[in-house]
């Protein structure tokens, strides 16, 4: 037994190393596939448009495209619009989803379970199916071409409620009992205990709702008609079709600017996810 063990050991160590090398090689290749379009886009945003049109990957690197994007297009206005929309959507979702989740976990009322399933059922419906009735509703409300049209329909989501409900349900029930003995009412328990306890889930939902609002394309395209309210994703598209000659360098620069806030949100989020 001992002998076979001795003979087997070095072989298995060698094969283990080989396995590891193979695994990392695969990961590196996959990483390049995933990251290369992004790197290429970032790289071309520094190249003059003439070079890009020729299909060249080399040229004089400069910030000219960025200067052009900021000075000749309303990209900053788009950014501002998106920021307003995303921030308000995020805040509203955090508030309303956490409140409804709190109700589903800590309040006892008739048909609680049934109502929750009805809530969940709305998740089954794809957004595209709701577009037309939603459009008619916001048109009748007179919200078209305004910030409100991009915020109001997204102030709460079944997903957010579901996610926070799961996280609230994991709270030990003794915390609620201890708070009851100290005389905390539901509001106090909600903001003094539940929210800080579920901080990580709240940050996750915040990042998620910010990003999904930031990346909205179809809905703002249908409901906004002016640069005053158009968010970045639709703004980018606008840059492309406005002129017959596409200034690709500048469009790339704009795209890079647009990606930045997304990255910032992700980095902030990641800092909290670790905690």
């Amino acid at each position, binding site marked *: 037994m001992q002998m076979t063990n001795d003979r087997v050991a070095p072989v298995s160590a060698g094969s283990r190393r080989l396995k590891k090398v193979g695994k990392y090689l695969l990961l590196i290749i996959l990483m390049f596939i995933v990251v290369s379009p992004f790197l290429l886009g970032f790289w071309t945003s520094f190249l003059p448009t003439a070079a890009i049109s020729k299909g060249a990957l080399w040229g004089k690197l400069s910030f000219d495209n960025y200067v052009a994007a900021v000075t000749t297009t309303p990209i900053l206005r788009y950014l501002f619009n998106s920021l307003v929309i995303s921030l308000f959507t995020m805040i509203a979702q955090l508030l309303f989803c956490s409140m409804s989740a709190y109700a589903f976990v800590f309040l006892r009322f008739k048909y609680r379970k049934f109502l929750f399933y009805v809530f969940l059922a709305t998740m089954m419906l794809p957004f595209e199916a709701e577009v037309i009735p939603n459009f008619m509703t916001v048109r009748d409300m007179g919200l078209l071409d305004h910030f409100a049209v991009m915020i109001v329909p997204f102030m709460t989501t079944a997903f957010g409620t579901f996610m926070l409900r799961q996280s609230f349900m994991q709270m*030990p029930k*003794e*915390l609620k*009992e*201890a*708070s*009851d*003995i*100290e*005389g*905390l009412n539901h509001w*106090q328990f909600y903001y*003094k*205990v539940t929210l*800080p*306890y579920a*901080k990580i889930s709240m940050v996750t939902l915040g990042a998620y709702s910010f990003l999904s609002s930031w990346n909205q394309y179809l809905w703002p395209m249908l409901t906004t008609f002016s640069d005053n309210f158009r968010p970045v994703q639709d703004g980018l598209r606008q840059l492309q079709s406005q002129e017959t000659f596409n200034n690709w360098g500048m469009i790339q620069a704009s795209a890079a600017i647009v990606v930045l806030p997304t990255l910032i949100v992700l980095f902030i989020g990641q800092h909290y996810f670790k905690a």
Partner: protein
Amino acid sequence: MPMAIELQDITKVYDDGDQPVLSHVNMSVNDGEFFVIVGPSGCGKSTLLRMIAGLISISSGKLFINGTQANDLPPKDRKLSMVFQSYALFPFMNVYDNVAFGLKARKMSEKEVKDRVDHALDMVNLTKFAKRKPRALSGGQRQRVALARAIASDAKVCLMDEPLSNLDAQLRARMRLELRDLQKKLGLTVIYVTHDQVEAMTMADRVMVLHDHKVQQLDTPINIYKNPKNEFVAQFFGTPQINLLSANFSNREFKINNSFSLPVRRQFDDGQYTIGIRPNEFNVEVTQKGSNARTREVSYLGDKTVATAEILDGGQIVRLVLNNQVDIAEDNLIKITGAKQFYVFDSKTGEVLFNEREANLNATITAE
């Protein structure tokens, strides 16, 4: 003595069940008393504690706190504090804030909060941990934070729900003493729920035994041990457990089997009974001659020997605790000559029929 808490005929039935979780509980807790509610899991002891705290509604019966009926009083107006098995600390607050939490919720002045928290942390020797988060503390320290929270509140009644059962055995033994000490020092009235009979025996002024949704017995620990009211109570207290042997009474003796019987002077109706004998109350000789039992497992614990033995001809197993003068090994033949004391229980209801003191007076017990 003034009664801090009194329960009259308290019954709890949950909406979705027809069987009561607790029925007709009567008890009163005196001021400054350490009152232990003990019972196996599922006996309703935590439910009872939560009804006293006001976390669960009372189905019927009356609850008095300091002489006023408190059935519908919200928890915070009942003037009590509670310590939980899982500690119920807020993980996102440091130790100081955890202890201050309830005081701030009650809108106390900043200075008073600080005084109380400092004092409470000092009482449990955690002053230097005030800025730590709970997860940076050991189990024992966390439990002390929970205690500090109870100390800091001005409530004179403290409810404890198995506060020590998440700790390891050694720490538990130490915390038992600390807790008892603290309770005396502060003059707290404590209602303490546990499933651990040792905790009940060592800490309590009085013990209430709950089982099968009913109060089995309410008395001092010594009385509960010496005069158990029924089989369950006898079995629940004492390690190793009491031996319960079925026996037949006729001709003034309890016949357990052909080789082992206990004669008594007192008269019983002929029939089936259950005999309870504590493991340390057997009279045992190690001898081949006239032996009536064979040892199976023997463990030496230093000051005593714990053994199990099979009574020959019938196969009932008995637990024995012997002093070290008796020298036995596994698979030895022994002779159980009798018992110093024993209890007779009704074999159907489990009620005690014949208790120890009477046994001393009326029975001389020898084997055949």
